């Protein structure tokens, strides 16, 4: 997968070449490409003059970063304490069953990635699921299918 280096450079310019800008830059690159490719990390290392090992260290330390390609839609299911006691695990199982993946995996057509997180701060509404940036509170396994259907319909088959 080739990446458009110019967009990375624009991001790096915005955050400055100081080490302080590393995490904000990586977050933005991740938002843009859904993951941090080795090419992207290499570019960041060169441009910021930070050793590649250090860039990898940071990229692999923080949970927000993915070094594997992720799907277009990120589905996040909260398994924090409050969501857990209200059935977050059943919710994530159901999503996994419907998409035929497990937590941390991406569907073959690169449409969806399923992630478990530890708290989204919506504890009063547990269990919570986030799909495409939208929060779904008081979810249940039976409601999952309806929510996903909407997104599955929009799905454009990948052109290989």
């Amino acid at each position, binding site marked *: 997968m080739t990446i458009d280096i110019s967009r990375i450079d624009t991001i790096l310019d915005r955050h400055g070449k100081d080490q302080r*800008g590393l995490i904000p830059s990586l977050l933005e690159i991740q938002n843009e490409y859904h993951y941090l490719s080795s090419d992207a990390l290499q570019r960041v290392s060169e441009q910021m003059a930070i050793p590649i090992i250090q860039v990898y260290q*940071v990229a692999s330390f923080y949970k927000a970063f993915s070094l594997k390609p992720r799907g277009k839609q990120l589905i996040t299911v909260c398994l924090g304490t409050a969501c857990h006691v209200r059935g977050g695990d059943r919710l994530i199982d159901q999503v996994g069953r419907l998409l035929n993946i497990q937590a941390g995996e991406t569907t073959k057509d690169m449409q969806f990635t399923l992630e478990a997180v530890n708290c989204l701060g919506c504890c009063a509404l547990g269990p919570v699921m986030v799909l495409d940036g939208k929060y779904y*509170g008081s979810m249940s396994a039976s409601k999952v299918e309806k929510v996903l259907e909407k997104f599955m319909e929009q799905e454009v088959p990948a052109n290989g």
Partner: protein
Amino acid sequence: MAKARSVEALALEKRRDEILAGQDAARVSIKVCGGTGCLALSSDEVAQAFEQEMKAQGVDGSVELKTTGCPGFCEQGPLLTIYPRLIFYTRVKPKDVAEIVSKTIIQGEVVDRLLYKDPQTGEKIVYETEVPFYKKQKRILLKNSGLIDPRKIEDYIAADGYKALEKALFEMTPEQVIAEVNQSGLRGRGGAGFATGVKWELCRNAAGDPKYIVCNADEGDPGAFQDRGLIEGNPHSILEGMIIGAYAIGAHQGFIYIRNEYPLAVELIRLAVEQARHDCLLGENILGSGFSFDVVVQLGAGAFVCGEETALMASIEGRTGEPRARPPYPAESGLWGQPTNINNTKTWAWVPHIIQHGADWFAQMGTEKSKGTTIFSVVGKVKNTGLVEVPMGISLRYLIEDIGGGVSNGKKLKAVQTGGPSGGCIPAKFLDTPVKYYSSGMYVRLAFAVAAHLEPEILVVDEVLAVGDAAFQKKCLGKMGDVAHQGRTVLFVSHNMVAIKGICARSILINSGKLQFDDESEVVVSNYLRNLSAENNASIREWGDFSNALGSGGVLLKRISINPIDENENAITTSSVLKCNFQFWNNLPNDLLNFSIILKTLSGIDVFNTVSTPISMPSGLIDGTFFIPSDFLNEGTYSIRVLIVKDKHQILLNLDDAIIFEVHDNTEHHGWYGKWPGVLHPKFDWAVSIIQNNSSFKLL
């Protein structure tokens, strides 16, 4: 020392007056919650429906629609409050909107089915202020969440926002600001509860420039969303607190470290920063006062550990968020090695309130040691979940039963988890324990009670016996014994030798992080004591002249010694007669003085206390001696504490471990070699005599 208000400050005041003059208290205002919680329940669609419906029914000109931050009662969302009557609707759906506009807004009638039903009484409640969830809280930090639009700086200004900043900049010196915060008794809301004013002072006085301040909004504990609620509801209050704090500390750069997982809070705090910059409340020369300060909003990248301050700073610097050992504390060496002050979001949000209303106002709330209110996220299986603000010192029962409405599904409450994963589970029987900052002793006791209750596989007990009375210690020991007898492991960390020997079969000695001994407890303890005594183990200590002699108040200790009176003996043994000698310079010729000597074992048991007769002594060098008889002390290491007392009660000098010495037992008594039990091994006079001589007496 009030300075004249600047043009910019006067303009801010004028702006506030104008906004207030333009507000009509009688105007109908619909407040829809736009916090993450209600958004998850589609409150945005409700707001859109209102916009359309108000137009359709022709009231869009006269009625105001406001999207507010989180009012806290997330369970019942989306929430709607209609001002000025404070009619409170819960679980509002877009399809309800037309009816609300026609019935409530136009005709003034209440839509019954949208009212909140009290789960305890079954009664329907019309007004927000009557809902038990709100009625039983004391909302100060959260007061404006649900009232103002967090996207509009005008709303904050109208609610007395930035008034405290103006007061601080033009009426107070930085020192006065710190004094006010100090006097209020505000403690950090992040968990450790360190006194905020003291922390600021440390940072202000630390050498180094520039100084930094940080707002810790990396709220990672599952179940907690107080910071999120506060930022989404009233972001400017946090900014204002930070600017005031920066002024007090002398910092010109601040960071808000906020979780990436809170997109709405990030958006709102960023917007607030831009607005504040635009209105001369951030940046160069704030409000024309000459003070400059700016803030960077820095996103966390999903590392729970970054809530810890040193990890957080590493993350701001662009490194992996790994905590480091303290000291040095951030106040001395924080971001990029510079003095840095880190406070929690809620702590910063308190600052404007304290500056505006004064320390005494704040100190009235809460308990003696824990002032003010605090915010809880009440979540899980209770009827009313949400954000709750209550005074410090209330009980968990009040939080759960009175405000939370009790456990849902009518089940029995077994335990409450507090403080997120780093906290613990509090069993139901402790529900009446007040919520506050505990003294370290009380905290350890509570923690032990909880830890022991949880039936752990490994019970780690670190110096728990250092606190608590004898009864508590006895209970602890009993509990630890139980755990050990159940085949579980007790890891006991202590400096109490008696306890170690009593409890542990195996001990390890760690010195400066290195393992020194690993053996049976008896062996390790005696090694430890020998090592320790080697440091102070001189049978004579002398301080020479006045300049380095110990003491004050007219007496200066010159010399202490202990040795066998028989000069041929080169080691102290159980059969030595010991001579203890003290010399001090006296400058109190008119006072009655006496020595008081306490001898103790190194494991801390006092063996005896002997005192000399109080007498008046001339100025000069005074000598005192007493003798310890032979066959009195047991084999072991002892230490001597010296006191010089004036008029039988006033202690002039008190020197612990003045001298440490070892007593050896290389003699053989009655065929027994080795340590005799007991602190002492005295040779008492025994009288064994024959009462009746009867040679024919036989034992069967």
